[in-house]
């Protein structure tokens, strides 16, 4: 039995032992949102073993997302219906070395959620499918408008036959949390190598301290905010009275 398991393990790790088909890394695994943060970009680079094309999928932390639809009531446009989706990433980008249609079959796109149209957003089970489609489209549109999703596929460029690189741009409103950067090597419609690299977006510095303090010690923050306001107002008045 033990021998069989050892054999199984050996078989499972054979491809990696022979030659790693894909290695990739990011220029940084941490995006620090500081007080002056205005967006940033990371460089993803790597090498492939042999032929193949590369797809890069960047995902922010998943969360339940609520989508609201406005309707006209008494001449005013107000929020009426709401639908909640589970599994929507806070941030989503795809980059590829060739147009996806040329080398990634739909089954793969489905499995790896490549492209916004393949994101698995879970609507309530009892929802009307037409409504789900409309709300889903609304969610994607809004996320794209906020530059959190991008329906456009970014470009992975090859430098010679094996080395590749791509830039991942993060806007100023990039959500905080744990991200994953998934790199796939595709050959003949099959994924022959995959690597997932974690990445973090964190607030750091004074802004982060203020945010944490305001949420963890909300009552004390409130008192301090009032005291600061009173002092600042008094000081400003004192300066200009002269």
């Amino acid at each position, binding site marked *: 039995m033990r021998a069989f398991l050892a054999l199984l393990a050996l078989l499972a790790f054979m491809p990696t032992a022979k030659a790693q088909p894909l290695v990739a890394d990011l220029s940084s695994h941490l995006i620090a*949102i*500081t*007080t*002056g*943060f*205005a967006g940033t970009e990371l460089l993803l680079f790597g090498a492939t073993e042999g032929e193949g094309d590369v797809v890069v999928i960047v995902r922010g932390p998943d*969360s*339940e*997302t*609520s*989508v*609201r*639809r*406005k*309707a*006209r009531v008494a*001449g*005013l*446009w*107000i*929020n009426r219906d*709401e639908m909640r989706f589970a599994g929507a990433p806070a941030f989503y980008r795809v980059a590829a070395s060739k147009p996806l249609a040329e080398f990634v079959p739909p089954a793969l796109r489905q499995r790896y959620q490549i492209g916004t149209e393949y994101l698995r957003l879970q609507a309530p089970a009892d929802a009307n499918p037409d409504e789900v489609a*409309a*709300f889903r*489209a*609304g*969610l994607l*549109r*809004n*996320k794209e*408008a906020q530059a959190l999703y991008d329906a456009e596929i970014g470009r992975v460029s090859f430098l010679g036959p094996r080395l590749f690189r791509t830039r991942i741009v993060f806007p*100023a*409103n990039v959500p905080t949390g744990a991200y994953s950067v998934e790199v796939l090597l595709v050959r003949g419609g099959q994924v022959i190598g995959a690597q997932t690299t974690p990445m973090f977006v964190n*607030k750091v510095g*004074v*802004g*982060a301290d*203020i*945010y944490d303090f*305001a*949420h963890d010690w*909300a*009552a004390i*923050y*409130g*008192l301090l*905010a*009032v005291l*600061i*306001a*009173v002092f*600042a*107002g*008094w000081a*400003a*008045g*004192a*300066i*200009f*009275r002269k």
Partner: protein
Amino acid sequence: MLIYLPLAEVSVDVFLLLLLGGGVGFLSGLFGVGGGFLMTPLLIFVGIPPAVAVGSEAAQIVAASVSGVLAHMRRGNVDFRMGGVLLAGGLVGSTLGVQIFKVLQGLGQIDLFVSLAFVAVLGAIGLLMLVESARALRRRSSGRRAAPVKRHQHLWIHGLPLKMRFPHSMLYISAIAPFAIGLGVGMLAALMGVGGGFIMVPAMIYLLGMPTSVVVGTSLFQIVFVTANVTFLQAWQNQTVDIVLALLLLVGGVVGAQFGVRAGAKLRGEQLRGLLALMVLAVAGKLLVDLVSMPDDLYSLGTLGKAGV
């Protein structure tokens, strides 16, 4: 230069905020108004989430009113007894308002409510001021003088029970009236991020019959404490007070107000009021157009599990 506001969670240009603070400060110095009713909608226009705009503006009003109320106290222009009753109502109203705010936020209707409240209040105030200044201008050209405000008229308000003596204002009236005024203004403070002086001052003069000399000081006295209560509660319950935002607005506001006061001394009152009225109406109009015109996208994202945005 962009600055990332820690609680609003958006990057905004520092100079834009200083300019906004300075501009509204200039107007408040020029016209002698608080400016919250202009600042909150302007903050929403530049992309600050409405909830954060309301909460942070409350903190800014505290700061902007402190030196004013101290000056009035030194000159003995504060009726503490009347201020106390107004304040009691204001504390109840603002505490209620913050709870209502929280419920509306959960329902996804807070943006609508804030916009509607501003359209109604700004529209009404702007029209009244426009009519008033037009009349004053006409009077001036025809050479007649404004009729003085009649005090001690017998209004329905004076028939209410719970009468109280207010020696400083030389009044003997029901405490219910100032309490109710304070309550209404407190709710506005919590829901709209305004001080409410633009409603309280006329109400004190025309409804309560207070002498004008103590009206401004007493209303500022109420505003400081009520907006302090709003600041505290919004920070505690909704995490929507961005102190960095409030301080930036304050810096601009203090400087702007100094220039405003100087400019105001050189201009004629009726024209100023007419100008302010037009501006108030413009803000109300813009908000109304946004409400009635079909939005670019009927769908929008709500927030879940994260308070305050």
